[in-house]
């Protein structure tokens, strides 16, 4: 389970995240959406423990699997060395991490450096190693960024697999069709605060957008635009 209680963060004079409450239960998938600078990455980084909150408490039950927007490992790292490090840090066997890499289609790249891999392969290495073993919470910051169709599908499969194993999944994304497909609950952040949250249907109702729009104008994008505009123009939208 993931729990944020009145968590907020200030970087110098700028408040990146206003006091935020959020609970993601085991087996639930929640997406953080919002414009750039809305506080999505900050919330995820606080949960991952790489950024300290200015106030409030962040709790996670179980192991954390975190894949950041940036690589987070030197590009010269050899895949096998990273696998050994993850196995050692998480108390897993070497066979378990090797099998995870093999199932991600990277068994033959164990002796490559991350620099030698494509962007999609790198993402698959990091995700495969992060999610191996018993994971309590899966945190993904813009996981589909710059990925091809296969890479994006791999991310979707990894999220679904983690959810099935009972992990609480929290991810941020600008790719709204993925959000609509994967998330049971969507949290809209604008300027560091939550302005709306709920299922897609609940957000559609809050935005006054019918859910039967065609593919050329997916409803989630219209819902997003209406709610972001309303939060900035008229004031915070009420949660559905």
């Amino acid at each position: 389970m993931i729990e944020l209680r009145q968590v907020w963060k200030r970087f110098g004079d700028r408040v990146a995240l206003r006091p935020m409450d959020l609970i993601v239960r085991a087996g639930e998938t929640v997406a953080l959406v919002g414009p750039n600078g809305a506080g999505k990455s900050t919330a995820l980084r606080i949960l991952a423990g790489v950024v300290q909150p200015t106030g409030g408490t962040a709790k996670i039950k179980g192991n954390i699997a975190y894949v950041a927007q940036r690589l987070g490992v030197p590009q010269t790292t050899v895949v096998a060395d990273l696998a050994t490090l993850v196995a050692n840090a998480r108390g897993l066997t070497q066979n378990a991490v090797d099998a995870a890499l093999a199932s991600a289609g990277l068994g033959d790249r164990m002796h490559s450096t991350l620099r030698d891999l494509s962007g999609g392969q790198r993402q698959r290495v990091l995700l495969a190693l992060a999610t191996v073993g018993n994971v309590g919470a899966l945190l993904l910051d813009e996981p589909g960024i710059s990925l091809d169709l296969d890479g994006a599908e791999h991310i979707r499969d990894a999220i679904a697999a983690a959810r099935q194993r009972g992990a609480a999944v929290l991810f941020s994304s600008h790719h709204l069709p993925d959000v609509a497909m994967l998330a049971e609950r969507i949290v809209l952040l604008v300027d560091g605060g939550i302005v709306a949250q709920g299922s897609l249907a609940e957000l559609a109702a809050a935005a006054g957008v019918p859910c039967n729009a065609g593919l050329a104008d997916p409803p989630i994008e219209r819902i997003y635009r209406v709610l972001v505009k309303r939060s900035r123009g008229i004031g915070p939208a009420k949660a559905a």
Partner: protein
Amino acid sequence: MTAALLRFELAAARSGRTAPFFAAGFALVCIAIAVVGLSAGGTITVQGFARTSISLLQLILWVVPLLALLTGAATGAECYELEYVAALPIRRSQIVLSRWAAWVTALGAALFVGLGSAGVVIAVLAGAADGFRYVGLLVVAGLLLSACLAIGLAVGIHTRDRGRALAFAIVVWCVLAVGVDLIAIGLLAILPAGTASWPLSLLLIANPVDAARVLGIGLFNADAVAGPTGAALRAMMGGWRVVLLVAGLVGWTVLPLVWAARRLARSDL
């Protein structure tokens, strides 16, 4: 510190070109000093260990701190790029310690290869007399390397930005290599006769480069050229000065590492 984390950091240290270049450069310069040192007499002769070591000491005192400070500063600043590693159940202090250990190993091995290959040439061509002193010089260089790497790491973790860290490291190197000596000379000029021994001795221990210089000179019983701080320490501490100097260098390793680990643990990545 887990062995896996150390292996991970060692792989990163090995992947760059710093250590091989350092080893090759040092070997070439050491051999050149051994061979060229006596060529002023008209013939090319290889110097023995004692004379070569005295010549090499000055090179070590300039090059080793500079390289270690720059490497430490760069790798210290890069600690903030280890988001993936920091999200694993690994303490930040372990990251700092393993990073330092990996670079001490990589650069120490380069130093050993560089000085060692020159040592083999000298031993074959000029005999093995005073060879143990040459080994002592290698130990002093290792202590200096370890202290300056720790200081560099602290600088990098403090500044966060690689460019600023490198600039800061060069400033620190100038202070250690030249600045403290200028302060010592100033103290000698200002303080009344007979009262400068304690301040000068403290100044010596407070500067790892000076401490290594006096230790290195002491290896060859050439204390007379140890400078004002070395003379002051000899007058104050007598035979204990070696222990004190080594303790000073170890202190310059431990304290910056502790500070850097605490700083990184409290910082946002």
